[in-house]
């Protein structure tokens, strides 16, 4: 157990080994580990950024969905309103049309009644004239006695 030249030799061996192992073993391994750590950190940062972007996109989607829903509700409400208006318009038109039809029908009925009355009057006049000829035994001239006949018929119809 003594200190001798081996001590100097061991210092040289040790220091040389520190330098050579630093350059050939520790350094390359540490560089690879640092590069991997950096890569993993970048990956994690990218994942975080992706998550953040996803949450932002989801928030954006929510906003757009809300806007779209609101817009759709507006459209539906407007459509419902328009439908109601159209329906009311149609009902009004139908009512007017029906009224017109009814009035027209009423006019036609009236005209028909008048025609029927006129026809009836003429027939009654002819019958009355025939009856009167039979009663008085003399042929009546329709043109000459038209005033008389019309008066009788009108009186008769007036009573009817």
């Amino acid at each position, binding site marked *: 157990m003594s200190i001798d030249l081996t001590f100097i030799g061991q210092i040289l061996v040790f220091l040389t080994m520190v330098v050579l192992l630093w350059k050939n*073993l520790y350094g390359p391994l540490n560089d690879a580990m640092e590069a991997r750590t950096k890569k993993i950190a970048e990956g994690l940062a990218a994942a975080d950024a992706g998550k953040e972007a996803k949450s932002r996109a989801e928030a954006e989607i929510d906003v757009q969905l809300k806007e779209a829903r609101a817009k759709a509700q507006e459209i539906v409400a407007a459509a419902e309103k328009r439908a109601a208006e159209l329906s009311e318009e149609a009902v009004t038109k139908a009512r007017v049309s029906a009224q017109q039809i009814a009035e027209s029908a009423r006019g036609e009925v009236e005209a028909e009644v008048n025609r029927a009355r006129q026809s009836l009057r003429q027939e009654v006049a002819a019958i009355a004239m025939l009856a009167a000829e039979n009663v008085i035994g003399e042929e009546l001239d329709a043109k000459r006695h038209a005033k008389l006949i019309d008066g009788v018929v009108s009186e008769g119809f007036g009573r009817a």
Partner: protein
Amino acid sequence: MFELADQSGSDGIASHLQYWTYVVDESNPFMQIHVDTMILTVTIATLMVGFGVWLKGKIVEGAPEGVQNFMETIVGFINDTVNDNFPVHNPMIAPLAFTIFIFILLCNTLDILPAYLIGYTASLISAIGSGHEFVWGGHMPSFHMRPVPTNDLNLPAAMGVSVFLLVLYYEFKLKPVHFCKELLLQPFASLLLDARNPIVKFLGVLIIPVNLILKLVEEIAKPLSLSFRLFGNMFAGEVIFLLIASLLLGGGVVATTAGFFVGLGWSFFHLFIGLLQAFIFMILTVVYLSLAHQPAEH
């Protein structure tokens, strides 16, 4: 084999605790080299650097596998230890700690090889190389080969002194005034700095050499404790291995059986001791260098 058995007594153990020494100058005990320590450390260093060069070409940046994965575990462990203890970033500290840990661990692990294996193998090679006729069970040449370099005080001392010089370098580089003040004034700084009485102040000046001696003892204790802790643990471990081997080789059936199991148990325990000593040396190096990097308190 009988030769080994004969050597397993106390003389045998003593002979196995000697180094293969090349004497440069017999008049000066410093001028000699432990060839076995040099061969083993240079071999281990070469293998480590060769392994590093081999692995360097195979490193992938993606998911590591096999040897790279194993080595990255060690590098990660060292990096964590250094980052936990170091206040600032110094790119040299982690490679230094890595080299210390791996190198000491490998040197210590050699201790679990069978006690006489390396020495005996070296003896055979020496006998064949020197042209001696080798006969199994014959006399071994007078040749010593210590199997564990950390058992040689020169290696732990060299590493401890290297670390100590680095600590001094950083102390002088980062806070020279503070370190000089500590060297000269601590632990009795209050005598000179805080006292109002001129006599006490003068006493504070007189006591500066005492401060310097105390501080030097404190500083020198660092490499000494680093070196002798590792050396002592590994030396004691080797002596116990040799005692177990003497039990294994020199006794009867019971002693041999007991020696086998005791040796097996001690091998596992010594593996753990070797790992622990490598870690302690590494962590203390980091702590000492960390203290040198701490900002000066005013």
